[in-house]
């Protein structure tokens, strides 16, 4: 699944940042801010009614992403 489908509180692990269908720069940026394979990630908050923006805990920090950005990140359930 991709990160935009996450439910609040679900424990997830980043599998990879997809190169498609996302904007060319995003791969590098998302990697720079910490979305790297194996990193634990969790959805903490959403905007009103579950809409944009989404707040994630990634590693030791919190980052707000839009749904389109989160859709570039392939994740697995934390076993």
């Amino acid at each position, binding site marked *: 699944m991709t990160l935009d489908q996450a439910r609040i509180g679900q424990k997830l692990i980043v599998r990879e940042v997809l190169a498609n269908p996302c904007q060319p720069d995003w791969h590098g940026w998302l990697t*720079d801010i910490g979305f790297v394979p194996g990193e634990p990630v969790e959805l903490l908050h959403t905007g009103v009614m579950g809409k944009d923006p989404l707040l994630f805990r990634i590693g030791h920090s919190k*980052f707000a992403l839009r749904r389109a950005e989160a859709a570039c990140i392939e994740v697995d359930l934390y076993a």
Partner: protein
Amino acid sequence: MSTPGKKIDLFLGPPLVALVGNPNCGKTALFNRLTGSRQKVANYAGVTVERKEGRLQTPAGKQIRVLDLPGTYGLTPRSPDEQVTTEVLHGTAAGEKRPDLVICVLDATNLRRGLRLAINIREIGLPVVVALNMADIAHKRGIPIDVDRLAALLNVPVIATVAIDGKGMDALLESLDTPEYWQHPLPLGLSLGNATRTNEPGAISDQMLVQEILDDLGIDNAYPHPLTDRIDAVVLHPVAGPLLLTVILFMIFQAVFVGAEWPTSMIEAGIGAIAGGIQQIIPVGWLQSLLVDGLLAGIGGVLAFLPQILILYFFILILEESGYMPRAAFLLDRMMGRAGLSGRSFIPLLSSFACAVPGIMATRSISNTRDRIITILIAPLMTCSARLPVYALLIAAFIPARSIMGFMNLQGLVLFGLYLIGIAMAFVIAWLLKHLTAHRQTRTLMMELPAYHLPRVQSLALGLWQRVAVFVRRVGTIILMLTVALWVLSSFPTAPMDATEPAIRYSLAGHLGEWLALVFAPIGFNWQISIALIPGMAAREMMVGALSTVYALSSDTEGAQLLVPIIAKEWSTATGMSLLAWFIFAPQCISTLAAARRETGGWGVPAVMLVYLFALAYLASWIAYRIGLYLF
């Protein structure tokens, strides 16, 4: 070596050390610790990214220049700020020397991200000293870090620091006295070694190196920040969050307008006293007029803004330092998104209620160029405090102090309405611009919400001082020069001896005003208003003083009070309404245009701003005038 045709920059003087780190890693606090108040704030060549340089002396007496580079997550730049950092580190930034050494500041509570950056900087061949910052917090949260082991793995010196209380500063300074630290870094002390890395599957990536370091140090799991999580549960709550934000904004507003009243009136009284003194000493004539109506009026115009700007910056700094600001942007992202802006446009727009100039200066934090330009364009629609004296005059003259539904005052309601119209129009314009610049690009958010910090008094004071100094230097000089220039316009040529009309009528401004009166006749402005609009170009509140002059009153506070009955009698209500509508858009503030030019590096944006605001002001005034004529 030099590329043919490229300018060669020669850099002499002390060696240059650059501070690099992720945003929110405590880099600026470290910079303040290292350099104290010996800082110079300027811009990088050709871009409007703030450049902070300071000086320090090592224990051995070596002089060193320290550059505080903008925080960055990596060497793939996302914003003009990060672009600067990348270029300086590569030695390709115009007019900047390539640093001789980099102090890479790592947040000990978030090593993974910092290590990637440190490895990348080592890789481009710069000598690196690692400052492992917030080591105390990491320890408290149960992340003990073996500093010597980390140094061995990275093969660069690592020094544990706590920037906020100065721990580790001596060790960091001493390390700068070690000559071998200024050499190119040795290979990484890792089993994966220094193989060439790509992002191809199977290749050795940066992440694998970082992972090896973290595994070796025994750091892996996520360590949450329980207090921040508990605060966020309220601050980002779908109902409580926006409510809290509204209360905070309301309180800032109150503080800015109520808190500044007394110091502003003190400043005005002081300027008035000096003016009185000058009038006693220097005989009536052009010199007295230049000093009092030109120079002093200009200085007063700048200083009168200072209390409001100080209070506003104070709160903005607290919100920034504490970590609340990105939360506000998070909460507002959706609302701003409807108008085609991001949550980051919020701070500049908030600042613009005091004055559009600091607001426009604050747009630097917006990484998307298109968002930034739209924010600059709509900033003047936020009712700045300079318009209040004009509103106060017009509302007192034309709006009856009637109470509505027993508890609301019609005058207050009209004032509130004028603010609201400005905000609503800003959203409409932003929305229109979004659809006109129809690239339909998806804009990135990717915004970090850092852990909460208690703001530190020293850094608040330093930040406040720096921002105010920049405001006075950049804006103050513009306002001062314009005031003097407009004084020349309104004073020359002088009135003939047998003049029957106020002197300003005979001046250049007077002639200009008569010509303008033709343009403004369809929206109900008489020649007196048209003339007063000209000094109002320097700063909007000067329009009140100018009106007093035109109606041959003294241009001080008493004059303004005497003005109310005069304009109530002389102008039609429709004209009053028209002028109120005009000032919602009020395109004629030159300081704002100058700030827009400075921040965008060209005349394009200020030209668009002038034309569209003028057109809107004219249209709104015309509508208000017609409605006024019909009703009254």
